[in-house]
């Protein structure tokens, strides 16, 4: 646990990668939001009704915007969905290099040529894992819902705050189930990086063999890395609402953007921090091709 906390210092040694991944996400989001801005700004900018948006997330403006123009909203959602699919595909490409550097432990001095070579080499594996995980997530979601509904039935007579706490508890259970599946996908991706010559089925076997005994530890690692990000997220949201509500105007909006982007940047950092600890953990049990070569001393 302490070791995971200590790994955060190593995160700052890969700031190029961190910034790169953040800008990839932010850049694509910016591309996706530009049409939204162009479509809606003309309407909002000339109306007195929309002014309340400068200081608060006024639902009345949002509902007039989205549902008064019902034809644009679904089209835009499809547009964002396509963007998300493209991003997921790009990330699967990057995952090849990413898991390579973290499982090998060679992330502090990244050889970009090797990095991209690994990206290309393992792309089909990562796509396969993603497709498989989509089905796993769907199955687990239904199974998890069934499980939490049983808990819900047992708590049938709760009213008020206990219901909210119980709902939070149910979401936490669902989240943990999904997180466990996500950790399994990390194991599979790491196994693919460590054993590039093994077929897919065998990689899953290796991942599964590592996943079962290590799940508890990996869950803890994930939560240790996630909690600081979660706190940053909550604080950023609270600060941005306060700033916009009090200072307002363009300055308030700019501060809010900086805070929200800090939050997004922290999320990218959280995943990299987790991967540093995860990679070290995985390497300690499955060295694969990263097993140090025996050095023969020539006397």
């Amino acid at each position, binding site marked *: 646990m302490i070791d995971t906390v200590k790994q955060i210092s190593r995160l700052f040694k890969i700031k190029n990668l961190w910034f790169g991944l953040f800008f990839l996400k932010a850049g694509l989001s910016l591309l996706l939001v530009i049409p939204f801005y162009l479509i809606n700004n003309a309407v909002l900018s000339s109306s007195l009704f929309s002014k309340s948006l400068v200081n608060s997330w006024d639902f009345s403006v949002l509902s007039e915007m989205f549902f008064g123009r019902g034809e644009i909203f679904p089209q835009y959602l499809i547009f964002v969905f396509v963007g998300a699919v493209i991003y997921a595909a790009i990330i699967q490409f990057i995952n090849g290099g990413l898991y390579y550097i973290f499982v090998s432990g060679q992330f502090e001095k990244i050889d970009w040529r090797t990095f991209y070579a690994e990206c290309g080499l393992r792309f089909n594996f990562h796509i396969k894992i993603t497709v498989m995980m989509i089905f796993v997530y769907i199955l687990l979601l239904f199974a998890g819902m069934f499980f939490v509904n049983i808990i819900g039935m047992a708590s049938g007579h709760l009213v008020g705050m206990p219901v909210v706490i119980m709902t939070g508890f149910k979401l936490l259970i669902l989240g943990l189930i999904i997180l466990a599946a996500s950790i399994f996908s990390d194991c599979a991706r790491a196994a693919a990086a460590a054993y590039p010559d093994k077929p897919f089925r065998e990689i899953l076997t290796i991942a599964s063999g590592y996943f079962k005994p290590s799940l508890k530890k990996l869950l803890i690692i994930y939560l240790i890395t996630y909690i600081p990000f979660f706190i940053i997220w909550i604080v950023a949201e609270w600060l941005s609402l306060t700033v916009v509500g009090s200072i307002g105007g363009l300055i308030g909006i700019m501060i809010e953007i900086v805070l*929200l982007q800090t939050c997004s940047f922290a999320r990218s950092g959280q995943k990299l921090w987790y991967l540093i600890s995860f990679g070290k953990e995985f390497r300690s049990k499955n060295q694969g091709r990263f097993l140090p070569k025996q050095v023969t001393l020539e006397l």
Partner: protein
Amino acid sequence: MMLPKTAAIFFISFLFFFNASAFDTLKITAELDTTLKQVSGVVEYKLPTNFELSTFEFQLFPNVYFSADTPYLDDKSGLRDRLINSKKWGSMAIDSILLDDKNIGDNYSIEYTQGIVPLNDYQSDQPLIIKLYFKTIVPESGDRLSYLGSNYLLDGWFPTPAVLKKNHEWYHPYYARNSELVSDYYFYDVKILVPSDLMVVGPGSSLKNSKEGESTTEHSFLFGPAHDFALAIDPDYLTEESIIGTDTIRIYYRDYEYSIIQKIKQAAENSIEYMTEYVGDYAYNSLNIVFSDIGFSGGIEFPALVSLSTPRGAPVLSNAYDMLTIHEVVHQWFYGMVGSNQVEHPWLDESLTNFFTLKILVHYWGDSANLFDLAGLKTTMRDMNRLNMTLFMGESSINQPSYSYYRGESYFSTVYDRGALAIETIDNLLGDSLSQIFWKTYFEKFKFAHPIPDDFRNVIVKTAGDSLAAIYDILIDSPISIDFSVSNLSNRRFDSTDAEISFVLNQKGTVNYPIDYRLYFSNGDSLDFKWQPQYSTEEIVQIAPYPAVSILVDPDNKWAIDANLINNSIVINPDNRPGFRLSAGIMFLIESLLSFVGGI
């Protein structure tokens, strides 16, 4: 001295007979069998004698729960699925019918909820006494008539006479999708035998006596005039009471529902206070609010009785249950005291009730976040009304039978949401000075009666004249959507002192009524004008000492029904900040989505 005394006796007798003949009495004697989940008993009804009837007709409401194929369950998929799963369907059977104590055998017919008894052989100068021996199977779990465990909600549980129209013909409401129970006003004299371990809650303070037997207790109720008589039964009810003015509110709850009681009580008190002041006195002086295990999240109104489902977590996160309570309490005025045909003209109670719910929420909870305020997202009931209204805009008119809406969402969106905003528009156009006069007049005139839409319209005409009635015709009777907008604002120098301001006013959905608009000038002043539209689009030119910086159509938001409020104004210098902030927020949402799908 004799004459005045005789006159006084005559006058008092006249009043008594007048009242006695105004509303008939339904005498009901019944027993609840909790093992068989059925209510059996007899309804006694005296037929009017001042005109001839060829038939006596009655309603068997529980047959709406008879099978999955009934018109009532069409579009009520949740209720239908529950009944399919439980296989505990509801129904009503008639064991026998006695006319003046003579059994008529099987000389009657029943189809769905309609029962018909021919009377050709039973003409008499004396009032004909009809006794209907019935057996009602309570469904698990229905909506108005329902049981779950040992909690019962009994509405429509005895056969009621069909509605006798002014032309002496019987009228049977068509109990199909979205419909509610319709009946005439009666005085109810009810005796029901219930297992002694169950607590029985009737309307208001109608419970007169409870005689405890060996294992059952006979509860006697006297209540009326009302068009329905419902009961809520549960072994674990606890009571909380509060008095507001001359009215008493009693809340019947289970111990696990205690945490919500104060909110419910406050909402009920506020509603009664507001409605008494704004519309008229609450006639029953006592209102019971019960928690029932109905199979959906919401409430059902009955005269002097309100049933709410157990609220779960909603009251912590929002004022949704305050809103629900207000809605059901307001129904005591528009549904309870002023009845209406809820099947043919559901808007006459639902739209009016939702309008007053909106008014009460704004009055007591404010207009900025009266429904929901979490993490900076503020929502009002009006926002939700407007949002729901736009979903089915232009499809149906507000004045349509409940069963004619092709699905539940369209019904609720049109009658509850658009209806409330249409009534709010009419109320706004009446203005503060006439609004209260209108509502008090309508209430007093149709108290304990069933007005039709024309009655509502006539009160508008009498209060505010034909021009507002024309607006009523557009808002209530037509499906068109109304949208005012302003565009093409420009200024140019007119002469050395004045500026020429030109802009275009548009209206979608023709409204022949003056529309207010406000000009804001560069020196900070503003001036109000009225637009009397003759065409759907008109260019307006104004000469003023200062150029205009913005124009706002309908500045006082009188036209609550306006389909789009964003286009109601225009500014000369566009302000990109709202769009910029919204886009930045959306960008962060997209980034979060990408983080979720990509893991980074």
